């Protein structure tokens, strides 16, 4: 029933390894977003997409890639994970409602990079 799901929910990775975080939405929204949340920094936008095949850089894209193969799926890829990327990652979907600020969030993925 949940409209935005994320997998995995928890992930432990090694420095230099590749990590892929997945997001699926059943809202049929055009736009999808990846955020990270850290104490003291709030929510920061990493990448976003306004439809299948598109990805755009957000405010902190360095060290991250994104992929949107379909309307429903949006992935965040860390090619060479570093300890500074330890964080909680949230995916969200939305459309033009409220100037794009009405968004629906997934439950988050807790990533630890050792």
């Amino acid at each position, binding site marked *: 029933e949940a409209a*935005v799901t994320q997998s995995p929910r928890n992930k432990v990775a090694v420095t230099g390894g590749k990590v892929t975080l997945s997001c699926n939405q059943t809202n049929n929204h055009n*736009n999808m*977003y990846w955020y990270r949340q850290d104490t003291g920094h*709030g*929510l920061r*936008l990493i990448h*976003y997409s*306004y439809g299948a095949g598109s990805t*755009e850089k*957000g405010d902190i894209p360095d060290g991250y890639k994104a992929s949107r193969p379909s309307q429903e799926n949006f992935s965040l890829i860390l090619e060479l994970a570093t300890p500074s990327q330890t964080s909680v990652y*949230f995916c*969200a979907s939305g459309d033009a409602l*409220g*100037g*794009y*600020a*009405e*968004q*629906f*969030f*997934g*439950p*988050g993925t807790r990533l630890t990079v050792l």
Partner: protein
Amino acid sequence: AQSVTQPDARVTVSEGASLQLRCKYSYSATPYLFWYVQYPRQGLQLLLKYYSGDPVVQGVNSFEAEFSKSNSSFHLQKASVHWSDSAVYFCALPGTGGYKVVFGSGTRLLVSP
């Protein structure tokens, strides 16, 4: 540039007491405004939204917020809080260029028994 300020990082209230969480915004026109809530180990959930019209908007779980253009504010209120309201609350509005959201820094609410 658009901005949102939540001046209170933490608020503690007793169960059954009334609540006000403050939000001030900066925006060139009348904005869309939102309150989101984040319970522990969960994502953000939309609590309520203001698009236009009646400045008092109702949300889920008996929360309401009042928009004030003269004060550039959108304060969240609840008449009687429950322990389950303990969470982090974010005020938000649309960012520039579309597709983005400007979030406040959040207010952590602790409801004590």
